[in-house]
């Protein structure tokens, strides 16, 4: 269970408060007007931003000050999810050992993950030789080998076309089915939320609200969300 306990983040004029928990395995969309703090919320959970007050807990354990790499979550960013100078296999291997000293078992896990995302045999290539969709698959293969209880997506598929994005979201859902991990996903598109996230966190007016059922929220949006959805 991930818990944000009375957290407050402030950056100049901007501030965001959050006080809620997410149950293990929950799939949560994070939606709201742009600039409201959706990415800030994910960065807080991932450890890239420190809260001014409050605590971030994992299973009741305080992890407010833990380094990003020590937290129980794998994160994909809007861009730069792969190191262009490393091969596909190395990029995935980083999810197992950051020093890349993989033994045979670990190397075969990398190969299996690549196979799982449909990129069998792509290991020796460099990311530049891959299409945008294939690069996203490599990043997902890494999420797979990281095998963390939570996956955080900060719109990693925003640059893909609509059909490709849907394909990726379905692949994400399959990966989550297999690993049992929970999901927090920033999204601009309510359809994404309906597609794979039964719950939604609304971020608006400086507050990240506790997750509610996605269908209820979208069918009867509160005023702040209604303006955004148009």
């Amino acid at each position, binding site marked *: 269970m991930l818990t944000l306990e009375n957290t407050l983040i*402030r950056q100049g004029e901007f501030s965001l408060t959050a006080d809620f928990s997410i149950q293990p395995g929950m799939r949560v969309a994070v939606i709201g007007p742009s600039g409201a703090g959706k990415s800030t919320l994910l*960065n807080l959970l*991932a*450890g*890239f*931003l*420190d809260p001014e007050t409050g605590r971030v807990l994992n299973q009741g354990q305080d992890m407010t000050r833990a*380094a*990003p790499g020590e937290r129980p979550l794998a994160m994909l960013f809007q861009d730069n999810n792969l*190191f262009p100078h490393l091969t596909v296999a190395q990029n995935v291997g980083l999810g197992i050992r950051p020093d890349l000293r993989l033994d045979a078992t670990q190397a075969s896990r990398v190969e299996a993950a690549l196979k799982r995302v449909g990129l069998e045999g792509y290991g020796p290539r460099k990311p530049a030789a891959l299409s945008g969709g294939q690069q996203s698959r490599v990043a997902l293969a890494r999420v797979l080998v990281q095998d963390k209880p939570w996956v955080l997506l900060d719109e990693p598929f925003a640059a893909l076309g609509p059909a490709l994005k849907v394909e990726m979201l379905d692949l994400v859902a399959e990966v989550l089915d297999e690993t049992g991990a929970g999901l927090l996903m920033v999204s601009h598109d309510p359809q994404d939320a309906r597609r794979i996230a039964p719950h939604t966190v609304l971020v608006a007016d400086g507050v990240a609200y506790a997750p509610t059922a996605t269908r209820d929220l979208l069918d009867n949006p509160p005023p702040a969300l209604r303006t955004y959805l148009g």
Partner: protein
Amino acid sequence: MAGRAVAVRRWPGIGAAALVAALVLGTLLAVALRAEAGRGLGPSDWAAIRFTLVQSVLSAAISVALAIPVARALSRRRFFGRRVLITLLGAPFILPVIVAVLGLLAVFGRSGILNEALRWLGLPEVQVYGLHGVVLAHVFFNLPLATRLILQGWQQVPAERFRLAAQLGFGPREMWRVIEAPMLLRVVPPAAAVIFAICLSSFAVALTLGGGPKATTVELAIYQAFRFDFDLGRAALLSCVQLVLVGIAALVALKLSGNESFGAGLDRAVRRWDSAGLGRISLDSAVIALAVLFLLLPMSLVVIDGVLGIAKMPAQVWKAAGVSVVVSLGSTALMLAFALPIAIAAAGKSSWLEAIGLFGIASSPLVIGTGLFIVIYPIADPFDFAFPVTALVNAIMALPFALRILVGPTRDVVQGYGRLSLSLGLTGRQWLRIVYLPRMRAPLGFACGLTAALSMGDLGVIALFADPETATLPLQMYRLMGSYRMEAASGAALLLLVLSFGLFWLFDRGGRGHADS
């Protein structure tokens, strides 16, 4: 609330910056404490100050004045080899001063080709030593720099403006008044200020072409007080004078030049509608041809004489070459030890760290050398430390350039891949090995190449510290010239030229090796 973006600790960078500051300021302090202010400056000291200022003003003014027509010609002509020529304009930066001096002597010296021609024509000979020799050498080095800086000004005029001018039927006079003169007013003063500051701390040129009471720079006076009189008090006092001069000039140059980037996009020729006409085409061609002749003729003679002289080189030259390579590589390693941590720490936000690196510009090698000598003297024999001190001072001198090359790309790596690295637990050494160093190969290669070449060709601190038994290649070459063994000196010059450019090429090439990312 703090955001985390850097995957390695910042304290090594802060430590490195503090070390550099301590070295520069500490040696200054040592110098200042030793300076005998009570004695005041003698007439010969004032003469040195006057000469330093006069030659710097003349060098800057002439370099810029000559660079304007060259830059204009380059900006409005397209011709075969233009790109190569503009790249070559960057080469004097890593050309060893003493090699260039030898080349200039081969053209303008007593038995140079110019005087041979004058004698043949029955005209009086020209004399290269003294003020005009010093200025000539400075123009040789700084005309290319001035040309690049001013060319950049021309390139930054938007093409639309020339189109509009053509539409309005501007002739050369209107073009000058409306477009070119305002641009030059903006570009020329900073270029002149930079060159003025560079020429202020001229040592090797003054050592070889100046000298005597009438043509001694402050740097040379420091050296003479040190080597000939072993008068540390006077050397220290002169060092303080030099520090004030260079410090003020560097501040003015920095202030004037602001944040201009150097050398981007210079290979683009702008389409002009006012540059047709046989007169202007032949003028531009002549200007470019003369500039090329002025820059390439001395260097060609160095190569030709060098090939002839290589067989006449004494064994010490090879030994000195070996020493120089080691010193140069040591200097490069020291530069990396300073520059990498500072660049990483500065990539966060503290740009004041980058400013520490600029200490190397504001200080002069002879001043730091004098300071180190004063510090070492009571404890040990400073002459035993000639090579380490040379490597260290060269590293500090190269640091501002290295930081200028490294900080931007470091910032890109940290901003582009910092969060991904952190989320994967890639930190510390692993981050350096797997992310940072591979992504920095090209700028690292370039910075190392520059440092190695600068250190290879440096004739400064080593002249202070070397005893007759020891020498780097530039110093050995200077000694050969001093004993009129010009053929051997020419051979050494060619060797030095090859080693300097060779080291630069190797590092730069090595950095660009796998450009597949």
